[in-house]
């Protein structure tokens, strides 16, 4: 892609970006949210036209006006959001739109045969006969990859493919990437996870503010220099120092005998000012534990806050008791995308702004929202902006604003930095430290091992719905956490 430019009303999304990727090579494309990665890839896949610039494939200039054009040229995309039909099995999804046929009828036998051959060729391990909606996110990712491969791709774009995967699933994914490289596929790999780059990429291109800043081989591009190129200034150490938890700090959150779908007899305590990380593989039950505490799912067992047990188990009871719950999937569960920053910020605490007859005091709402925008440095033109128009990191800050508005005593964070850029991550870490200092008890679910290790006073490892191991900060290492999570440790 050479000299690609793209503007939206009021925004210059891309200005003169050039990237190239060779056959059998993995090019990592990195940059903060809003740097232009997604727009560039949408142009390559035909979802959006470029204003200027040219695209060459195998040295020939091509025109990509629609997704169909892109597909014909052998360009495959694996988006962050899946494009699978949940009720269909893997085979039906893989051949969706190009089902093998015998006359006017579908040829299921042929489809089965071809799908089996395909996954065998690339060493993908997945059940072909179950509705994909019943499969874990990691397996769905594999279906998505198989679907792209079935189209004979020559250029494969992977957008944050590991965002939802556990460490073990990531290893599997990288093995598949290696196979693809061996078959001469050119891969563009978009990621926010710096530590992955050395494992998977050959070269790295950094985008910033719609321009390509630097391209180097992975070996000559140390992570701190990549980060610096991304943000345009030197970055401090990735994780801030955690304040020590006072030995006399009272127990703020006590969970005992918690049972729910996917949660088996979980008990743990979090003291005021302590950050407890919940580690484990995807699907181990970490999200289910925090959801049960927050009243999001039906659960039994006791949840006690500052010595007072929570009675009923609904989200509003939990909120009233001082629990704030930042969900894993901000678009599906955290935000009302079609509403403004203001309406989202005040949503969980409307009672605070309601006067007689439920009348909302809009000037009080505005004041509270402005305060949050300033405190969390939410990058929005104003409080009336629809959250759908904001970047991922900014959206996540709106979710946090919604919950911090209530001055929570317990903060539950489920994958708080998934899919957001480095600068926003750092700000969220700082915020966590600030809240811990104020005595908030924090429970953080994270699939990013460095984050888990760097941001927790204590790590509880979850496997099969129960806590199987606990490590103090000093004794936690990637090896023993992974070992406990995968059941390898005694």
């Amino acid at each position: 892609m050479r000299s690609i430019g793209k503007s939206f009303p009021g925004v210059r999304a891309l200005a003169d970006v050039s990237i190239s990727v060779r056959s059998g090579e993995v090019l990592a494309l990195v940059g903060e949210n809003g740097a232009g990665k997604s727009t560039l890839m949408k142009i390559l896949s035909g979802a959006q036209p470029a204003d200027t610039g040219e695209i060459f494939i195998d040295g020939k200039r091509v025109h990509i006006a629609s997704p169909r054009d892109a597909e014909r040229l052998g360009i495959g995309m694996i988006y962050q959001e899946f494009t699978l039909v949940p009720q269909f099995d893997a085979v039906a999804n893989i051949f969706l739109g190009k089902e093998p046929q015998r006359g006017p009828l579908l040829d299921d036998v042929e489809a089965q045969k071809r799908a089996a051959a395909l996954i065998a060729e690339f060493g993908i391990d997945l059940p072909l006969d179950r509705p994909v909606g019943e499969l874990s996110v990691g397996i769905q990712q594999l279906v998505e990859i198989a679907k792209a491969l079935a189209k004979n791709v020559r250029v494969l774009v992977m957008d944050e493919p590991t965002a939802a995967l556990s460490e073990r699933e990531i290893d599997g994914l990288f093995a598949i990437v290696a196979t693809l490289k061996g078959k001469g596929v050119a891969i563009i790999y978009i990621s926010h996870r710096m530590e992955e780059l050395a494992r998977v990429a050959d070269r790295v291109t950094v985008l910033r503010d719609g321009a390509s800043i630097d391209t180097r081989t992975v070996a000559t591009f140390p992570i701190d220099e990549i980060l610096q190129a991304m943000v345009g200034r030197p970055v401090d150490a990735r994780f801030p120092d955690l304040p020590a938890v006072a030995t006399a700090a009272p127990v703020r959150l006590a969970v005992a005998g918690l049972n729910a779908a996917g949660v088996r007899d979980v008990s743990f305590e979090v003291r005021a000012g302590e950050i407890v990380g919940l580690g484990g593989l995807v699907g181990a039950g970490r999200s289910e534990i925090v959801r049960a505490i927050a009243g999001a799912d039906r659960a039994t067992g006791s949840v006690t806050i500052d010595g007072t047990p929570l009675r009923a188990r609904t989200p509003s009871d939990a909120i009233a008791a001082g629990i704030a719950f930042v969900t894993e999937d901000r678009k599906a569960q955290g935000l009302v995308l079609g509403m403004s920053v203001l309406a989202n910020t005040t949503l969980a605490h409307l009672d605070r702004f309601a006067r007689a007859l439920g009348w909302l005091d809009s000037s009080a709402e505005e004041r509270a929202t402005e305060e949050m925008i300033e405190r969390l440095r939410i990058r929005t033109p104003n409080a009336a902006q629809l959250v759908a128009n904001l970047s991922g990191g900014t959206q996540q800050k709106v979710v946090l604003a919604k919950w911090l508005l209530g001055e929570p005593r317990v903060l539950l964070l489920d994958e708080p930095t998934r899919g957001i850029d480095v600068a926003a991550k750092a700000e969220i870490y700082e915020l966590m430290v600030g809240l811990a200092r104020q005595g908030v008890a924090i429970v953080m679910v994270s699939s990013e091992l460095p984050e888990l290790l760097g941001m927790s006073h204590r790590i509880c490892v979850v496997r099969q719905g129960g806590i199987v191991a606990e490590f103090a900060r000093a004794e936690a290492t990637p090896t023993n956490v992974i070992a406990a999570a995968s059941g390898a440790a005694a």
Partner: protein
Amino acid sequence: MNPRLRLAGTILVLLLLVIGVNIAAHGSFLEPSNIVRVLRQITYNCILGVGETFTILTAGIDLSIGSLVSLTGVVMALLANSLHLSGFALVAVVLLAGIALGAGAGYVNALPVVRLNLPPFITTLAMMQVALGLSYIISHGRPIPLTSNAFNSIGIGSFLGGLSAKLHLPALPIPVLWMAVVVIICSLLLEKTRFGRSILALGGNEEAARLAGIAVHRVKTMAYVISGICAAIAGFLYMALFSTGSPQTGTGDEMLNAIAAVVVGGTSLAGGRGTIVGTFFGALLIGLLDNAMNLLNIDSYLQKVVLGAVILLAVALDEIRKRYLAAR
């Protein structure tokens, strides 16, 4: 584009239409008396549409409003004829009873929706049949003429007659005042209260609303209750207008026209986005269109075709807007 901008689009289309038709009809279209006629005609559709807006904002629908107009009208007429009251007391008691009945029917509509997660299309379809059947059973299939004349002024009276006469304007009919009150109250309810915010939030993202502690079941139920109440008010006004409670009132195109007003007014059938004022303008656009076609002596069968085309156009524009947003 936000709902206000879309509303501006609707109003612009209205203006162009009004000016064009007025020229074609040699000025008779914009005569005050004609405008008042249109307002009176859209009153019932607008009130039903306002109630329907709440259910559609929750990504639901209420198909039973036409039948509820019939049922509440019949019940209110029977009640009015059997009560030993007169004047304002009679009107107040009858109206409150009708509203209670409409609210109760709305509650029954909502119960299986929130408890069993049944689609509102089904539950309100069932209510549509049940309410209509009951209406015919109670009335033995015959219209029930009101014995009291306490309702006459509400149905066909006007207000501020003295003032408008001084200004050489036609008097505003009482039903138009009712419409204005319903539109204003419901608009404030939706835009300015906690309940309204909750409706928009759960229509936009039910899970996010639930996790934010919003009583999703209660709010949804209220939407159907309000829809039932609006149907009862329309039933009351029809009864007053005809001095009769007839089981046949409301059983024609009323429900579909109300939904059309909501959709043309810019409310998304997917929920979460829309305004009450938009529904008013939707009803007004449809009413003006009807009136204009009559003035221009357009064949009544052709009128239906045009109306259908306008509804399709409104929804198509909504879809195009969504695609434009999604492509950004």
